[in-house]
């Protein structure tokens, strides 16, 4: 369904994006960055760091926030900014939800923009990431 940007209002909620980042996704992310801290893919190494299992990398999670916003936005605009404040680790193979709401709609430099508040919520209902994004409602030409 295409987003009608003219109907976007403060308080609107983004559809929840249900995800379960698995070890394969994490390893592909490590390969993309060519960075392989063992606690991302080796359960024993993660335990040595005091974690109950392998972790979803923080920089991967900022991209997942971007994806949630991008999928909501579709062709109605583009993502200008996305920020992730990491509050607690997320483990691989565990469900997470990405939630968001429109915090503010405004005009800037002749363009209609919106600020979004975002969160990654783990299966305990805790916010593991608090996020923020800015979108602009113009088609990238």
């Amino acid at each position: 369904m295409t987003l009608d940007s003219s109907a976007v209002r403060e308080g609107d909620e983004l559809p929840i994006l249900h995800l379960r980042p698995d070890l394969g996704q994490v390893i592909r992310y490590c390969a993309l960055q060519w960075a392989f801290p063992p606690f991302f893919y080796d359960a024993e190494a993660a335990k040595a760091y005091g974690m109950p299992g392998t972790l979803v990398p923080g920089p991967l999670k900022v991209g997942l926030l971007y994806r949630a916003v991008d999928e909501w936005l579709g062709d109605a605009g583009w993502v200008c900014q996305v920020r992730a404040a990491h509050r607690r680790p997320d483990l691989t193979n565990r469900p997470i939800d990405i939630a968001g709401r429109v915090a503010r709609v405004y005009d800037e430099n002749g363009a209609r923009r919106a600020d979004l508040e975002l969160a990654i919520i783990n299966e305990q209902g805790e916010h593991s990431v608090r996020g923020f994004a800015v979108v602009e409602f113009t088609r990238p030409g």
Partner: protein
Amino acid sequence: MPDASLLTDEVRAMVGEETPMGRVRVTPKAYRRALEVYTGRIPRSAPAPGEPVPGYVLAALDSEADTPAMPSLLPNSLLISNEWQFERPLRMGEEFESVYSVVAINERFGGRFGYSIDFRAEVIFKDPHGNPVARSGRTMTQYSAAEARDGGGT
């Protein structure tokens, strides 16, 4: 807590220094790999040259060069935030000059980590005219687990 600030003149002088990281290009391979990582989808084709690509392709450009290491002032470190900023959408085939920069170094006293030091750094992607098009930033905090509340772990 240390007797004196660990932010020496040498450390403070790092703020604002720019380190050229070389040229990077938005390629079909970068697009395909980033799309697979972030969405799980394997695209059959890539956008044509000049067409917009999703911003998470930035993660594939980040990897073209190793960023300089931060000085290790305290024994433990933790990633506390990431940020991507775009002046406009990225486009297939574009080439950027990437530049690493330390944006801020701040001390914090008290709180969960006790005495800690935040390092905020970013990679700036500039077009051929030197205009920033995108930034990929991260903030790391250094702390001593022995002095942090509950070890500082999350």
